[in-house]
C-alpha cells in the first residue's frame, strides 16, 4: 500500500505542492501590499481622496517613499538618515530619477508620499492632476559645464560650439536638459548674446540625450564626452574627475526645486514631517553642505 501511494500520485502531489506554494506566495504578496498602501485609490479619483489622518500622535511613525530628482541623490540620502534619527519610528525609502520620469511614475499610480522635483514644470504636471499638494521651493541650484579632468577642447562656455566637440545633455524633458537648452537660447538671443546661431551650433555637437543629470555626469567622468551640462552640486560630487567651466551669469538660469506631499500618501503626517525637516535649519544645513542654495 505504501509503495502504491508513493508511486502513483507523485506527479499530482508535486503539482499540488507547486500550486500551494504559488498561491501562498501570491496571497502573501497581496497581503503585504494592502497593508502598506492603504488608500490605493486610482489616479482618477485621487482628487477626492483626502489622506486619512491617524489619531493624534506625539511621534511620527511609518514608512514613506520619497520620489526625488537625481541631482538630490547624495544630499537626500543624508537628509533621510538624519530624519530617521530624529524620528525613530520612521523609515524613508528613496526613488531617485529624472523628475520627468518620476512625474510619469506618479501619474501612473506608483505609490509614494513625497515628490521633490528639480523644476516647476514637472511638479506642475503632477499637481495639475491633483496628485500632489501645494509645492514649496526648498532649494536652488546652478547649472555648470563639466569637462573631463583629463583634458577637453572646451575651456570656456563659448567653446561648446567648436566643431567636433562631443557634447552630452540630458533629454529635453528632464529638468537639466530643459535648463541647458534655455541657456543656449539665452546665449543666442539677438541682443547681448554670443552669436545668433550659438544654440543651433551647440546642439549640432550634441552626441546623446541622457536619461538624467547623473547619466550626463557619468559620460563626462568616463571621458566619453568632451563636455556636459549638470548642476554645480553634481560637479562637486564628481570631485577631481571633472573640471567645472562656469556659464556666464547673463545666460544662466537658476534651478528651483519644489517639494510637495503626494495626495495618495498612506502616511501623510510622516510625509509632511519629512518636508518640514527638509525646510528646517538642520535640513537646509545638509543641503547647503552639498552646494544647494535657497
Amino acid at each position: 500500500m505504501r509503495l502504491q501511494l508513493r508511486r502513483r500520485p507523485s506527479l499530482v502531489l508535486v503539482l499540488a505542492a507547486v500550486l500551494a506554494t504559488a498561491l501562498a506566495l501570491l496571497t502573501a504578496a497581496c497581503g503585504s501590499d494592502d497593508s502598506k498602501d492603504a488608500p490605493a485609490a486610482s489616479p482618477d479619483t485621487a482628487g477626492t481622496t483626502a489622506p486619512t489622518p491617524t489619531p493624534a500622535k506625539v511621534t511620527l511613525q511609518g514608512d514613506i517613499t520619497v520620489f526625488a530628482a537625481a541631482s538630490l541623490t547624495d544630499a537626500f540620502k543624508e537628509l533621510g538618515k538624519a530624519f530617521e534619527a530624529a524620528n525613530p519610528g520612521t523609515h524613508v525609502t528613496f526613488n531617485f530619477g529624472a523628475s520627468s520620469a518620476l512625474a510619469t511614475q506618479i501619474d501612473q499610480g506608483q505609490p509614494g508620499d513625497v515628490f521633490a522635483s528639480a523644476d516647476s514644470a514637472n511638479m506642475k504636471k503632477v499637481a495639475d492632476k491633483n496628485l500632489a499638494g501645494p509645492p514649496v521651493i526648498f532649494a536652488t541650484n546652478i547649472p555648470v559645464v563639466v569637462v573631463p579632468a583629463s583634458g577637453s577642447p572646451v575651456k570656456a562656455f563659448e567653446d561648446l560650439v567648436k566643431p567636433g566637440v562631443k557634447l552630452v545633455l540630458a533629454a529635453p524633458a528632464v529638468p537639466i536638459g530643459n535648463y541647458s537648452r534655455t541657456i543656449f537660447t539665452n546665449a543666442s538671443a539677438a541682443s547681448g548674446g554670443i552669436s545668433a546661431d550659438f544654440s543651433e551650433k551647440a546642439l549640432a555637437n550634441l552626441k546623446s540625450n541622457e536619461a538624467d543629470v547623473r547619466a550626463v555626469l557619468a559620460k563626462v567622468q568616463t571621458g566619453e564626452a568632451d563636455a556636459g551640462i549638470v548642476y554645480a552640486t553634481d560637479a562637486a560630487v564628481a570631485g577631481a574627475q571633472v573640471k567645472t567651466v562656469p556659464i556666464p551669469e547673463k545666460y544662466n538660469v537658476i534651478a528651483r526645486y519644489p517639494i510637495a506631499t503626494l495626495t495618495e500618501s498612506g502616511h501623510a503626517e510622516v510625509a509632511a514631517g519629512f518636508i518640514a525637516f527638509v525646510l528646517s535649519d538642520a535640513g537646509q544645513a545638509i543641503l547647503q553642505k552639498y552646494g544647494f542654495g535657497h
Partner: protein
Amino acid sequence: MSWNRHVPGLSGPRLDRTAKTTVAFLAIVVALFFVLPFVGLAQRAVENGGFWDLATHRQTREALWLSLWTSTTTATLAAVFGTPLAYALSRSRFPGKVVVDGLVDLPIVLPPTVAGVALLTAFGRRGLLGEPIDSLTGYTFGFSTTAVIMAQMLVSAPFFFRAARSGFDAIDPQIERVAYTLGASRTRTFLRITLPQAWPALLAGIVLCWARSMGELGATLIFAGNLEGKTQTMPLAIIEAFSGSALGLDGAIVLSLILLGVALAVLTLFRAVAARGLRQP
C-alpha cells in the same frame, strides 16, 4: 508523439483527470501573468487613440529601422564568428574546458549596464584599446552606431553561442568519422554532414540572439548613448518617451506594441522556416 503514454504515474484515468485539471489551472495562472501585461499595453493604446500618428512619427520610424538593421547585423556577425568557434569548442578536449564554457556563458549573467561599463573600459575613449585607437586615428566608438552593434553583440552573442554549442554537441561524432573514412575532407564533412544536422539549433540561436538584440537597452545607453537616428534604438526611444520625450507616455506604449508586433512576426516566420527545415530529412 504523446509523452504521457510512457509515464507510469499518469496512466490511470482518474489521475489523468486530476493531472489535467492541475495543469489547466497552472496554465491559466501562468497565462494570466504573461498575457495580461500585453493586453494592458494594447488596451491602453486603443484607449489613448492616435496610434497611427505616433506609429508613423519620424522618431518612431528612425528607431525601428535602426533597431531592425543593427539587430540583424549583430545576429549575422554572431553566426559568422560564432559557428566555427562553437564547433571547435564542441569537438575539442582540453584541460580547463569547463572554465572556458563558463566564461562563454558569463555575459548572460552580466547585467546589461555592467556590460556597457565593461565595453567602456575596453573600447571607450579611456579604455584599454579605445585610448590607443583614439590617439592614433582619432576614431572613437562612443556615440556611434558601431557602438550600438558592439553593445548588442556582447549581450546577445552568448545566446547564439550556447544554442550552437548544444546543437553541435548533439551530433554523434561517429557520423563525421564515417564521412572522413569515406574520403570526405573536414570542410566538406562540416558543410555537408554537420551543418545541416545542427541547422535547427543554429537557427534557434540566431533568432534568440536577434530577439535579445532588439530588446537591448542598458549596455547601449551606457556605451553608445542616445541620439535619434544614430544610436536611439526602439528600447531607448521607449525609455526616453516614458521619461517625457515628444512622444510621451502614449508614444512609449505605441512603440512597445510595434516592437512586440515586429518581433512576433519575425519570430513566427523563423519558427515556420525552422519547422520546415526539421521536417525535411
